[in-house]
């Protein structure tokens, strides 16, 4: 009976909580920040993708000729270029594919052509869109233009724009470009293996030994984060270049090329790998080691059956992060890569060297694939890692072991010497008057205003950019994260937002910068006015480093119970009061971390902003690149070290400020 009545009941409307004004406002905020991400990320990427399909080719149906006899008399017969080409086979289909600056000689259509002959020629376009040049004079239109033979050899046809895959075809049929794919993958893989192995040893020593000076080692290992990635390249030139201090170590091999790129990559990716692996090792469970000891497993066996499996997610994650950093980095291979081409440098060469924006876009798309792939796997792994540490876990405490501790100390010292050595060499090089002929000390290399690159103004601009990025970035990122974490319902919107927030990490800086040119430098874009200003640099930098900041904020916010919202709602407090009075103060440590992260990265970033700075907004990091490019290597080192010191000061201020503020706002954490 009762069963029957149940089936008779109508399904009824799904219960939906009524949305309060707070919910609407919060959704409004999400929408606003989502729009920000769409404008700053999705649309530029779309503009870049469509650029990679913008092709140029010569449309031979657009041109017509007449040829006179020896006496200069025209018979009136009109020959289309298309027909001529079929007759003579002057140009194959590949020859008719062009870049935006392409030019096609017309004399090839006439096998009997001689510039000394008295034969005269006429040329015209068969439609008004046809463009050709006489010398450098641009001609359009359908009027016949008559020339003598000598002038006729100066006529070239211009390509017309269309869309298609021909850019990709050109790319994959150019061996020197395709080789960069292999080079990039090879270098990234080798660097990843070396960095992760070294960083694992370092992190292991920090976590599992009782050696002394752990704090110093940790601090030194983090130093590479504070300098632009191309600085180790400069130091390596001074160490192992042809006039290098330790040249004999290279045994005749050149540092310019794969060796230099790998050594520099290990330097600048080391802290990233070490941080991730340290975290992974820190959460391992002491009970497993006790069990291993009880089972009389050897230390070697314990290492492979307990330590490595426990840290495997960290190791995999570190590998992909390092791989991504190396393959997308542009500064280091540019400084020390020599003739060894890498994808990121190819983008720069295509755009700046050849003004071939379309091909730059194609290389960007190619570079996106491994970067996206590495990023995807990393995210997948990170999701799996969550449940490793259970409530019953016991934190592993290392016991002193004299031999092992000394071994760890020696190993960490070697790494620390490598890192400190690179920095010291840069500082030394910056103070030398004229390496290697005049080793007296001087401050000549600090006269940045006498060199191309932007001078001291570039340094000031960088600080301004870093401060603005830290300020606006933190506000945007934290507000966005808060709204996404604390809004009820609105599942699709939140998922979409999460996706947008994760995307920047997969986008290489070069690609983002190039995408910004295509999107913002379009005169039809209403945001065109910010092109060439500080605003676009801030926008680009915030977007470039959005993901990590977002994750930091989201993690901090996740730690706060959602009951805060319920309680405040039942007390009829608007959400913004809770946000300002509770959420922000509680999350202050995370907020400070985000701002220092953005500051440091804005000081060191090169790849995204190298396409976007203008003469008024030159940056210190770009100045390092440009001064090195012009051969002013010592001043480049000097500027690089200025960035380092600035970041050290910023971090010190950050540490002091956090300490003070945290004492102020986090008093509730202690009783």
């Amino acid at each position: 009976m009762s069963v029957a009545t149940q089936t008779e009941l109508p399904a009824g409307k799904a219960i939906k909580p009524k949305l309060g004004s707070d919910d609407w406002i919060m959704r409004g905020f999400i929408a606003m920040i989502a729009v920000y991400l769409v404008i700053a990320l999705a649309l530029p990427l779309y503009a870049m993708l469509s650029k990679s399909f913008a092709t140029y080719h010569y449309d031979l149906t657009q041109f017509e000729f007449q040829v006179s006899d020896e006496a200069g008399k025209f018979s009136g017969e009109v020959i289309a270029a298309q027909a001529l080409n079929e007759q003579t086979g002057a140009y194959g289909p590949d020859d008719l594919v062009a870049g935006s600056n392409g030019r096609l000689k017309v004399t090839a259509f006439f096998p009997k052509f001689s510039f000394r002959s008295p034969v005269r020629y006429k040329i015209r376009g068969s439609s008004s869109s046809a463009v050709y040049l006489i010398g450098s004079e641009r001609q359009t239109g359908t009027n016949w233009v008559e020339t003598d033979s000598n002038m006729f050899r100066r006529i070239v046809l211009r390509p017309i724009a269309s869309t298609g895959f021909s850019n990709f075809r050109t790319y994959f049929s150019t061996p020197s470009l395709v080789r960069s794919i292999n080079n990039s993958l090879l270098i990234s893989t080798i660097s990843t293996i070396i960095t992760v192995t070294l960083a694992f040893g370092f992190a292991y020593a920090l976590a599992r030994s009782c050696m002394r000076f752990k704090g110093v080692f940790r601090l030194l290992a983090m130093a590479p984060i504070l300098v632009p990635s191309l600085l180790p390249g400069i130091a390596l030139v001074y160490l192992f270049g042809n006039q290098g201090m330790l040249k004999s170590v290279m045994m005749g091999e050149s540092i310019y090329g794969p060796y230099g790129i790998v050594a520099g990559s290990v330097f600048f990716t080391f802290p990233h790998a070490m941080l991730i692996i340290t975290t992974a090792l820190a959460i391992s469970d002491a009970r497993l080691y006790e069990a291993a000891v009880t089972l009389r497993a050897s230390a070697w066996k314990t290492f492979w059956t307990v330590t490595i499996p426990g840290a495997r997610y960290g190791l995999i994650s570190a590998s992909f992060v390092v791989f991504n950093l190396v393959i997308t980095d542009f500064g280091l291979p540019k400084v020390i890569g020599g003739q060894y081409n890498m994808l990121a440098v190819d983008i720069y060469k295509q755009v700046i060297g050849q003004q071939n924006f379309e091909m730059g876009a194609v290389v960007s798309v190619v570079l996106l694939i491994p970067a996206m792939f590495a990023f995807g796997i990393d995210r997948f792994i990170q999701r799996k890692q969550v449940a490793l540490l259970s409530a019953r876990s016991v934190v592993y405490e290392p016991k002193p072991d004299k031999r092992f501790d000394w071994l760890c100390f020696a190993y960490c010292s070697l790494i620390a010497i490598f890192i400190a050595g690179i920095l010291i060499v840069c500082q030394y090089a910056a103070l030398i008057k004229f390496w290697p002929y005049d080793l007296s000390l001087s401050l000549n290399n600090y006269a940045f205003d006498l060199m191309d690159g932007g001078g001291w103004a570039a340094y000031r601009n960088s600080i301004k950019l870093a401060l603005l990025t830290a300020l606006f970035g933190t506000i945007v990122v934290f507000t966005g994260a808060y709204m996404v974490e604390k809004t009820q319902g609105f599942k699709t919107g939140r998922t979409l937002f999460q996706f947008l927030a994760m995307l920047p990490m997969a986008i290489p800086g070069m690609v983002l910068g190039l995408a910004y040119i295509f999107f913002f430098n379009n005169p039809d874009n209403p945001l065109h006015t910010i092109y060439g200003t500080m605003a676009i640099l801030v926008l680009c930098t915030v977007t470039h480093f959005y993901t990590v900041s977002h994750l930091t904020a989201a993690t901090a916010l996740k730690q706060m119970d959602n009951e805060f919202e319920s309680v405040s709602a039942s007390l009829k407090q608007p959400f913004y009061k809770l946000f300002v009075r509770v959420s922000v103060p509680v999350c202050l440590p995370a907020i400070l971390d985000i701002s220092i992260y953005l500051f440091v990265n804005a000081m060191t970033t090169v790849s995204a902003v190298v396409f976007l700075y203008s003469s008024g907004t030159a940056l210190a990091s770009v100045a390092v690149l440009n001064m090195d490019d012009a051969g002013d290597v010592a001043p480049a080192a000097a500027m690089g070290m200025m960035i380092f010191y600035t970041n050290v000061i910023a971090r010190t201020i950050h540490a002091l400020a956090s300490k003070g503020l945290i004492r102020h706002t986090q008093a509730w954490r202690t009783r």
Partner: protein
Amino acid sequence: MIKHTIKALSLGVAFSIAAYASAGAAELTVYTAVEAEGLARYASEFNKDHPDIKINWVRDSTGIVTAKLLAEKDSPQADVVWGLAATSLLLMKSEGMLEAYAPKGVENLDPKFVDKSTPPTWTGMDAWVASVCYNTVEAGKAGLTPPTSWADLTKPEYAGHVIMPNPNSSGTGFLDVSSWLQMFGEEGGWKYMDGLHANIARYTHSGSKPCKLAAAGEIPIGVSFAFRGAKSKAAGAPLEIIVPSEGVGWDMEATAIIAGTANIDAAKTLVDWSITKKANAMYNTGYAVVAYPGVAKPVEHFPANLTEKMIDNDFEFAANNRAAILKEWQSCYDSKSEPK
């Protein structure tokens, strides 16, 4: 009497205001690739004669300024280009981006330095000329003899001791390649580069870097330009600046008005001034070869016979074949690690 004076005074004031309003108070956005240290001097010299026109510089390297101008093709931001490679200006000319204008006194210039169209679309200022920077100290250590010609550089003794700019990213590199193709002919030029490639340590991105690397002893022989070599020599580097006997390529810095500028009168004033004898004397501080005949005084450490060795450069050939040459170059040489 007083009344008269006041009247005259006020009239004078009115006149000068009117003159000020009509003649200018203009601001010009000027794109340039001239080295940073020269710019302030250029502007102040110009403003001595035309205080009413303010110049807003947008400065970057040749490649970047060219890329920027081409990217802005459909909505130009610049009024005038003052000091950009003529090869770059020819690219812009073929896009119809330049305003044809014959500046006052253009007939005084060396015809080599003026666009062949009438009226010309650009006028040259000064030339930068290819040269070889030779580090005597390091070459001595390696037991090298100084080369005297381009052909010498292909000799096996220089293997790994020569460095030159990549023409794909450097204007100086391109002028070298285009000059070899013009001097040795299409076939001979590529054959020469095959030989040279075997000796090249690596190709740099910028045109001045080879000379600076030679100055620092990193690579003893740098194919670069004379002005850079003279500067490094003045800074104390053990350099010798060699002018190869076959002749040397060159490009010029040139000036042009961007078509569609809203400040055409001020732009014309600037371009008129840019070809005066006075302006050319100003260019002479950095460049030994300038457009106005008889102005140039010798520059310290600059090779004396350089002007005679400058080839009869066909800029049109360089501009119109640029894309094809670069493509060919890239497929032949753009990877030193390529197995032969």
